[in-house]
């Protein structure tokens, strides 16, 4: 029976990808969440310092990075869509482009860090920079870890390791990558914009 084009909206019992990654995702959300709240309350204690130091941030590069990550995240959605149709090669291609944008994010971020460190700013300069550098460096490492995961999945996809029926690995990598994007979506306005 050919199922109708508008497929019924069936509800899965568990989120896409391996449940173990979701335990890790929730732990990371908790850790970042506590850091975001800590930033907010630390800001409440010295507003002038935070507002003044925030001026020196490169908001443009932060915004571009947000766009980069969102697009990269979208690419992963397309990668999952591709593999659901059993198209291994296109799926690998989408993942490769997602990793490509990941490199773009890293490049922009490294440039931003270089400028910051060149200006003699370090973790101990003041509370704002401590939070700014901690949060962005912590997120930066998560982007790298995410790209390692995506690379592993891409290689397996290239070897035809996934199929329409069995592609839980791709969904796992996609879920983690979306989390990395999701965290940056909060981090950008909180650190770069709100004053």
């Amino acid at each position: 029976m050919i199922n109708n084009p508008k497929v019924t909206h069936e509800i899965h019992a568990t989120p896409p990808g391996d449940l173990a990654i979701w335990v890790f995702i929730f732990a990371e959300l908790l850790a970042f969440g506590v850091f975001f709240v800590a930033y907010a309350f630390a800001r409440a204690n010295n507003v002038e310092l935070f507002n003044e130091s925030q001026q020196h941030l490169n908001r443009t590069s932060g915004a571009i990075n947000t766009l980069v990550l969102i697009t990269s995240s979208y690419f992963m959605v397309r990668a999952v869509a591709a593999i659901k149709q059993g198209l291994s090669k296109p799926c690998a291609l989408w993942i490769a482009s997602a990793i490509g944008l990941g490199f773009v994010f890293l490049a922009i971020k490294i440039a931003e860090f270089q400028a910051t460190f060149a200006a003699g700013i370090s973790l101990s300069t003041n509370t704002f920079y401590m939070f700014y550098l901690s949060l962005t460096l912590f997120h930066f490492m998560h982007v790298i870890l995410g790209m390692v995961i995506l690379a592993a999945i891409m290689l397996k996809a290239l070897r035809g390791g996934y199929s329409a029926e069995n592609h839980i690995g791709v969904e796992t990598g996609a879920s983690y990558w979306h989390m990395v994007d999701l965290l940056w979506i909060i981090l950008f306005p909180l650190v770069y914009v709100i004053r």
Partner: protein
Amino acid sequence: MSETFTKAMARNIFYGGAVFFFLLFLGLTFDTMQQLPSRDHRENITDSVVRGKHIWETRNCIGCHTLMGEGAYFAPELGNVYVRRGGPFIKAWIQSQPTGVPGRRQMPNFNLNEQELDDMVAFLKWTSEVNTNKWPPNIEG
């Protein structure tokens, strides 16, 4: 939970998470090592301070006292004792032990000579000058 939660993925997260956070820990350690010289004034570590630390260790002072809050909780904190009491008091106190007052906590007499006493004071002086983020809360330590 059914097949949606595989052991292989959990194992990967264990190894990945451990390596990831150990690298982050090494990064923070590297930065700390850069910042420390300006915070602990290591330029003030004279031979006397080194000998003082050696005496502090070989008499197992940490077995009763705390130093910067770490050690045994039987006797007072000595991280800021130099500020609290001053060098001469420390030397006199060490020499006058044990008090022998019945029922009170006793400190053995380590029979330190004049040189060793000066070294101990130098070590405690250096320790009191380390930037410990304003700890302890007050002079009592």
